[in-house]
């Protein structure tokens, strides 16, 4: 791959010094939420398995999800799913050249953050 780019360009990649614009934050949260969801797949599949199993299995499921720590993790995963969902729809629209100018991009990025947090709150409260 070293042959593909010939020019040497200056780089400034001190991440702690760069103030990230909102679309960049939405983008990195898309990646982080996706990674988190992938890592937690065994837990989610296990819960899905137990919840659809026999009465005994269902009781085991109820007991596990009643634990405050598990609830907290599931709350985080709910946010991760909803953020990934909203940000994903935004990226699909950008692919279709919808809202690609700077102002629209910033507004839609804010919308993703706000809508996913609001949905997490509403669904989280309903399930708690």
């Amino acid at each position, binding site marked *: *791959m070293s042959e593909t780019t010939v020019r040497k360009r200056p780089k400034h990649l001190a991440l702690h010094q760069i103030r990230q614009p909102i679309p960049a934050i939405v983008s990195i949260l898309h990646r982080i939420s996706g990674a988190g969801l992938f890592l937690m797949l065994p837990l989610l*599949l296990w819960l899905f*398995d137990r919840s659809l199993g026999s009465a005994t299995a269902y009781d085991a499921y109820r007991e596990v999800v009643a634990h405050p720590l598990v609830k907290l993790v599931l709350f985080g995963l709910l946010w991760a799913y909803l953020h990934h969902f909203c940000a994903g729809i935004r990226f699909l629209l950008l692919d279709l050249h919808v809202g690609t100018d700077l102002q629209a991009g910033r507004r839609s990025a804010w919308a993703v953050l706000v809508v996913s947090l609001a949905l997490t709150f509403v669904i989280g409260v309903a399930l708690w």
Partner: protein
Amino acid sequence: MVKRIIVGAHYGLRDWIAQRATGVYMALYTVLFGVRVLMLPDYSHASWQALFSGGCMAFATFLFFLSLFYHAWIGVRDIFMDYIKPTGLRLALHLIVAFLLVGYAGWAAQILWRLAA
């Protein structure tokens, strides 16, 4: 003029499309799932089982899981390609993820079609 040598295994466009196609399917399924859950008569074990025991719902849910695992494969592979530089380690991680996801697909099938039996 940019001097560029074209290289690569040419899976880029296929994966780019697959990532979007699976994403669109999962988004649609998520909305369908939300509506179906809101329409449940009550939130009991029996209603929850009944929701997934219909042939269409089991089929749609299994497709959701397959989309999820394919989507996760492309996403996680891209993360490794960005951050894991040693080739051997990256290859090992790719293999682990691929095996895990294939296993998850088997597990998902078992969860869903055990209900119909």
